[in-house]
Structure formats: structure tokens, C-alpha cells
């Protein structure tokens, strides 16, 4: 594990702001049993960031970062979009490269890290929006599944291009009026979770981030399966309250509403993945 | 053109039909010339080659470093691998003799003269020599396969131009066909299956060498009749590395 990169030299410690010292002293490192219950007590791996007030993406980020079983050796690959605004403030090695190439970057990183560190576990997680994952980056996303890359892909589905001002995306629902769809979207929401199953993912989950506990369980399962078996995919509903005209405190209610319909919890687990998840449960890690 | 000065370079164009082995012939010709101490470069015609479609290969041999690249637009020697190419040129884009230099040589894989009156009208004032040589027939007779046509053609080239001896031709052929086998064949664990294949390959190489050598001799005779002297001065020692 690479905790050493957070350890501050004693000779200079007094000059370093407390938020940085806290990362060394109060964050949960080296403990695979860490989880969302640590949130009130431990130093979080994300600092203050600039998402809209009340944006559910910020919740999703906090839950995911709290659930990583191996943060000291986890790399997160991002793409262009609202999520990119959070990445500078995440206390891990992360990448923003181009819009849509996140699964290609992740493939190169994962394979090279496996080559460079054959005796270490380095988890590689992709975290990108719906435009990046399903529209512009679909080729990279699906091919990384076909190739059975051992990475976890998480899609923040807000059903719109939010960062560019509210345009229709492949994951917008049919009929929804957005920019570039002035008469309403003419075709159905892309069933990305199904494409992920058909393309070779070993663990697929679809859910909202209304339940932190459920997010933790899904993320841990996805990462453990990716580590040992092959690609995994997590599809999270993180509505853009701005573009669908909700108030800052409406997000949770919106997600709970969708929990009962198009984001009803759905999970696919391959045979190989079942074995891993069972074992990790027995080890008390899930 | 400075025909008074000694030739420093031979540029060869080899129009053929895809599958006739003109690329292989070019490779062997360059390797043979290299073995004899000349500078040599070979390359194919760059395109989406298909079997039985017109194709070309090129060889450049000289006594000085060769910088020139690509298609040979102004050849000293044209080797016509297939009679069809005379009528079609390179992918129908030009007459087959286009760009031939004064005092050049054309070797045609044919028993009889296939050139039209107009062709001769163009070539005669340029003092181009034409050597009709039935390479395919020769290959069938000696190697028992028309696949050795390219060997007969390259043998004819070296016989007619007298720049390298048959030992270099033999080296060129061996280098082309043996390279991979030598690389992996050196290990003691060569199993019997590979060994059988290897024997077959050796047989093939032998047939190829015989075809090339026999053509060399025929062409050498022809060159003597024509009063042809070696086309290049002996290579400078510096070329031999």
C-alpha cells in the first residue's frame, strides 16, 4: 500500500494546512472494512468542490469514495462533464484526459500497473457521466468490456448533458424536451445496463443514490469482481436538479420516486462473480 | 543523358501479375547484389495488391549509396514477368516501356517477340536491347513448377547484366528462404515434423537455385552474342561491410 505518499515529513509538518495533515492522520487507509459508516468520523477523500448546491452527484462521490476497499492503491479515471469539477479535490491519483476516452485510458493504466506491480493490487475505477459513457465514449466503454478489462465502470446518469447547458443525451427518456430535442426526444433511453451484460460485464447494477448503504455494497461488489474476474458496471441515477427544474433540497425525493420505476434496483451477477462475492462476504468484506 | 560516363547505378522495374513472385525476386536480387558488395535496395509497388492483378517491384543496384526511393520511373532494365503486362502496363496507367533509358534492356518472359511495331519504333532509336526469354517454360522444365518463374527471371537478369556471379545468386536465394528456419532450427529440440518440412524446403530451395543458375547461363550466352559487357564496375570495397 502507498500510504507513504500521504505521510508528511515531521520537519515541515507545522507549515502544512490541517486539511492535508488530516488526510494522513484521520482518513481511513489500509482498512478494507471502511465504509459509509466512517463518513461522520473519518477525514473524507474529497474536499470542498463546486457542484451545484444539492446536486446528488456530490452524495454519490462521498458514498463511493467512502466505500473503496483499497483507496491507497486505487486510481480513478474520469471524463469531461460535471463530475470533472470534483476530481481535482479527490485525494487519490485520478485522470481527466479527453471527453469519452475514459475506458481506453483506464485499460492502458490497468494493464501497465499489472505489468509494473505484479505483486500489488491496484484497483482501477472509471467514473463518468452518461454523455461520456454512453454517447461519445460508447465505443471505448463497450470495447473495454469485450476485452474483459479488469476495471469497474461507474456511470453517473443525470439523463442530460448538464455541464454544457442541458442538451438531450442517449440516456434522456423519450419525449423529454431538452436543448437539441426541441420537440422532445424521439427515441428511447439507451438500456446501458443491458448492453453491459451483453458485452461481457460480470457484475452490473442499476440504482439511485438514495440509499448510501446500498451504494456501498454495490461498489464493493463491483470492485472485488473487477479485481479478480473482469469488467463490472454500475449505473447510478444522479438527477440534474437544475435541468429538470427542482430545488436544491428536492434531489432525494426525486431519486426515491425513480427507485420505484425506471431506476428500480437491478443487479446482474455472473457465475464467476457470485463466487467472488460469496467469498468476500464470508471474509466480512462486503 | 551522359552515356559517355560509366554507369553507376542500375534501376530495374519489374511489371508482373500478383502471385508471380516479383516481390520475392526483387528481394533476392537486392540481397544477391548486396552479397557481391554492391549497394542495393528493393521495394514493391505500393498498393492494394491482389492475386492475378498487375503489380510491380523495383530494385536499385549501384556502386555508391542509394538514396532514391519508390517507383522506378526511369528504368535501365525492365523485366516483364507476364505477357499481359505488355498490353496493360502498370495497372493500365502507362505503356510498359515508359521512361526506359537510352541503352536500356528489356527482358520479356516469352519465346517470341510480343512487341508491336509501334513499340519497336519507340525503342529502336533509344538502342534498347530486348531479350525474349521463356521463363515460365524454363521453370516448368527445371523446377517442375511455374512458381519458379521468378527464379528464372532473376537468373536471366544477372546472366544478361553480368554484375554478379551465380554464387551470389545462390546466397540471395538461401538468405530469402532459410532465414526463419536458421533462426529457430538452431535449437536442438527441432521435432521431426519441422524436420520433414525443412527437408521439403531445402528441396524447394535447391530447385529454385537450379532454375536461376540455368537461366543465368542462357542469358550469359545471349549477352555474349550481343557483345554486352558487365553493366556496372566492380563494387568498391567500402560497400562491403
Amino acid at each position, binding site marked *: 500500500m502507498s500510504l507513504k505518499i500521504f505521510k508528511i515529513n515531521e520537519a515541515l509538518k507545522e507549515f502544512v494546512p490541517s486539511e492535508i495533515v488530516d488526510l494522513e492522520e484521520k482518513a481511513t487507509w489500509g482498512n478494507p472494512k471502511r465504509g459509509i459508516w466512517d463518513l461522520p468520523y473519518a477525514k473524507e477523500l474529497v474536499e470542498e468542490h463546486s457542484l451545484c448546491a444539492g446536486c446528488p452527484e456530490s452524495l454519490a462521490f462521498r458514498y463511493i469514495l467512502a466505500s473503496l476497499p483499497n483507496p491507497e492503491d486505487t486510481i480513478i479515471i474520469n471524463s469531461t462533464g460535471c463530475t470533472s469539477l470534483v476530481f481535482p479535490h479527490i485525494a487519490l491519483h485520478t485522470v481527466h484526459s479527453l471527453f469519452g476516452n475514459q475506458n481506453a485510458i483506464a485499460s492502458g493504466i490497468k494493464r501497465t500497473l499489472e*505489468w509494473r506491480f505484479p505483486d500489488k493490487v491496484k484497483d482501477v475505477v472509471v467514473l463518468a457521466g452518461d454523455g461520456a459513457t454512453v454517447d461519445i465514449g460508447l465505443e471505448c466503454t463497450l470495447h473495454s468490456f469485450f476485452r474483459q478489462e479488469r476495471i469497474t465502470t461507474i456511470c453517473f446518469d443525470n439523463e442530460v448533458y448538464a455541464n454544457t447547458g442541458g442538451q438531450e443525451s442517449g440516456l434522456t427518456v423519450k419525449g423529454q424536451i431538452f436543448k437539441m430535442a426541441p420537440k422532445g426526444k424521439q427515441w428511447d433511453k439507451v438500456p446501458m445496463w443491458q448492453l453491459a451484460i451483453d458485452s461481457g460485464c460480470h457484475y452490473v447494477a442499476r440504482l439511485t443514490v438514495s440509499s448510501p448503504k446500498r451504494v456501498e455494497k454495490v461498489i464493493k461488489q463491483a470492485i472485488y469482481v473487477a479485481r479478480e474476474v473482469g469488467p463490472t458496471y454500475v449505473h447510478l441515477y444522479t438527477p440534474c436538479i437544475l435541468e429538470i427544474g427542482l430545488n436544491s433540497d428536492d434531489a432525494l425525493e426525486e431519486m426515491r420516486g425513480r427507485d420505484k420505476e425506471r431506476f428500480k434496483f437491478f443487479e446482474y451477477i455472473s457465475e464467476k462473480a457470485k463466487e467472488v462475492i460469496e467469498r468476500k462476504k464470508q471474509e466480512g468484506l462486503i | 543523358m551522359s552515356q559517355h560516363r560509366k554507369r553507376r547505378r542500375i534501376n530495374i522495374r519489374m511489371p508482373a501479375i500478383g502471385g508471380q513472385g516479383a516481390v520475392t525476386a526483387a528481394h533476392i536480387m537486392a540481397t544477391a547484389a548486396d552479397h557481391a558488395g554492391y549497394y542495393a535496395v528493393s521495394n514493391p509497388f505500393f498498393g492494394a495488391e491482389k492475386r492475378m492483378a498487375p503489380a510491380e517491384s523495383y530494385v536499385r543496384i549501384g556502386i555508391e549509396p542509394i538514396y532514391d526511393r519508390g517507383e522506378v520511373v*526511369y528504368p535501365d532494365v525492365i523485366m516483364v514477368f507476364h505477357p499481359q503486362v505488355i498490353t496493360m502496363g502498370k495497372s493500365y496507367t502507362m505503356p510498359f516501356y515508359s521512361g526506359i533509358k537510352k541503352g536500356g534492356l528489356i527482358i520479356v518472359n516469352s519465346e517470341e517477340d510480343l512487341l508491336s511495331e509501334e513499340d519497336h519504333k519507340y525503342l529502336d532509336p533509344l538502342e534498347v536491347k530486348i531479350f525474349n526469354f521463356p521463363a515460365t517454360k524454363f521453370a516448368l522444365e527445371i523446377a517442375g513448377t511455374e512458381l519458379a518463374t521468378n527464379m528464372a527471371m532473376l537468373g536471366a537478369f544477372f546472366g544478361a547484366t553480368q554484375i554478379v556471379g551465380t554464387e551470389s545468386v545462390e546466397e540471395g536465394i538461401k538468405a530469402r528462404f532459410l532465414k526463419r528456419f536458421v533462426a529457430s532450427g538452431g535449437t536442438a529440440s527441432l521435432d521431426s515434423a519441422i524436420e520433414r518440412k525443412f527437408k521439403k524446403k531445402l528441396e524447394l530451395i535447391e530447385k529454385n537455385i537450379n532454375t536461376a543458375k540455368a537461366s543465368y547461363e542462357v542469358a550469359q550466352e545471349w549477352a555474349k552474342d550481343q557483345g554486352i559487357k558487365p553493366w556496372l564496375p566492380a563494387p568498391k570495397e567500402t560497400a562491403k561491410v
Partner: protein
Amino acid sequence: MQKTQQIKYNRAGQKVVSPEYLLFEAPRQKQFMTGSEVVKEAVKRASVDASVSYPITPQSEAAHLIGELWAEGYVGVYFRGESEFSVMSQLAGCSMAGGRAITTTSGPGTLRAMENFPMWAGSRLPLQLVLMARGVNSPLTIQPDNLEVSFLLDTGCMIWHAETAQELFDMILAGFVVAEQPDVHVPLITVIDGFFISHTREAVMLPPDDIALPPYNPYISPIPPIDMEMPPGRFLRDPFVMKSNYTSYATHASWQFEVRAAIERSRPYIRKYLKGLVEEFGDPEGEILFIASGTAAAQAKEATQMLIHDEGIKARVLRLKTVRPFPAKEIEEAVKGVKYVFIPEFNVVGWLEREVRNVLYGKTNVPIIGSPKVAGGMTMPPEIIVEEVLRILGKEVKHVP
């Protein structure tokens, strides 16, 4: 640091030697091979960690051969990507993760991948792309034509242009050494004219294959690698750098300038490892000066010899080995006392002519003639170059039958 003299081996079991030994001192043997095969020989001796490939003529063969090296254990990571765009991103990932990586592409593939190249440069990845230039689709051709280099000039990558298979071999090895210098550390595009080099068979001198370059050390990189092994632990490669993201506008400008400055810093290393940014050929007193790179320079050399031997005209060639960094001073020096500058090129836009005119603007009155220009697979016979010179000089043209 460590100064022990013990023998080191790379992961392929090759003995690690200094770049100077590998490039200049190791005994060499002659082989007869194509430019594509030479790529394999160079990569084999370069302690390469990763390569990703995609088929496109004329680079496919070189890409297959790197795959063979992976199968033989000389390259750590290798696979076929789904498009050039993805391949260049996958390769970026390999480099960010601290690996030495190389790939090859051509023509339309270069343009498909285009968005990646400024990203490579901005992310300071010392990747190497062997570019086997062919036409771009205007309409389709697979033939040699180096128009695509024009698109790459301002990506922030170094661009070198090899003339022969031999030079390609040496440039690939020297390329990693120069590109990985901490004060340079930008990508290198090693250009050859497709087919003219990739498919041409010629004599090449190679050092033994049981020695190799020292492995890449990502921990002296100007930007930390993405491996959670080097501080800072909180590190995004690379953030939005704009005022709305709480940085000064000047940050992005400074970042871009820094990438260009990094290319400038490669000059002393290039002088050392390539023996200069240019090569001079022909009569040093030559009044006719060809400025050219790659195969156009090779053809100009042939034409120079014809002019000198057959026409009694003093001529010379200034061959550019590098286009980025651009040898501006060398060009300024070379045009002194010259009557005409000719710039032969294998493309219709004349990107080299544009570059040369730019650096000579206001500095010389020498006429600059941007011809001959051939494209779309056409060869540039030296006879045609000679004809062009004679025509400009008002002399009789005898060369072309």
C-alpha cells in the same frame, strides 16, 4: 544516487547498457530488411513496457512485429485497440501509469486519433508514435504522401523525420532517450514516408539484440505518474485549467508555452544523440540548396549528385532530421551565399516550404522555390528535380527521356 557498476538486466533478460553505448559504441552487424522490420529491431532493444496497435496500411506490419515481441517476452503489454482514437488514449494510459510505450499509425488513422496528440503533449507523456505517412482521405489513397505531418506540426509533439530504415532504427532508440529527459518529456512523432521506408528493403547495421536501453524511470518525470506511489496523493492528471475552475487564465497559457519550451530544450540532446538537427550533403560551396526532409531529401541527394557529376552545377542538400524542434538557425546559416533554395515535397500543401519561408522572412533575398511537389503516391524521380533546377537556371534539359 547509486553509483555501483554492477550489471543490470531488464525484464526481458537483456543487459542494460547506456544509450551512448547502444547507439554509438556497440559492434554492429549488417542485416537486409524493411523499415517495418527495423521497427521491431529497435523496439526489441528499447526496454518497452507497452504497445497498442490497430491495422492500417502501411504501418500494420510494424504493428504485427511489435506484437511478436510481446509474445516473445520483450514487451510487457500489447493488444489491439478498437480504433486509432482509442489506441492513442490506451497508450496515454500506459504512459501515465509509468510505462515506456510506443505505437504506429498512418494517414487516416492519424487524423482519427488527432484529439489525442495535443493531450499527450499537454500531459507531458514521452510516448513515441512511429508515423508511416500515407495520404489522408481526400479521397482515399493508401500511397505515400506526407500531408498528415502538416496537421501535426502544432500539436506540441516533437516531430522527427527519418530518411532511411537505418535512421528510423537509430531515431526510435534515441527518441526515447531524448523524449524522456525530465526537462523535455514530450511525445515524439517519428515520421517516415510510408512504403518508401516501411516496405523498402535495404542494408541496416544493427547492434546485438541481447542489450537494451535502461528502463524508463517515471519518478523523474516532470509530472508524477498515476500509480499511487508518488506524492502528491491528491493529484488529477490533468484538471480543467480555466478561470471558472479557480485558476488564472495565465495558467493555461503558461502550460501551453511550457510544452513548446520543452521542445526547445530537446535541442542539445538531439545534437548529442542524432548528431545534429540537420545533415549537410553535397558540395559545401553549392549555389543550389535543397532544403528537405525524409524521402524528399533522399531524392534531392540523388539530384544533387546528378547536378554535380552530369551538369557541373554546384549543389547541396540541407536535410532536416527534425521538424519540431525546427532547425531555424541551421537554415539561416545554410542559405548564406546561395543562389536558389529548392524545397521538394511529397505533399500538395508544401508545409516545409511554409516553415522555411517563415523562418527566413526578412532575413534573405534568396529566391525560395517550393518545388517539385508530388503527392498521392507519386514518386519524385531525381531526374525531375534536376529538370526543375535546369529550367529555373534557364539551361537545356537533357535528363528526362
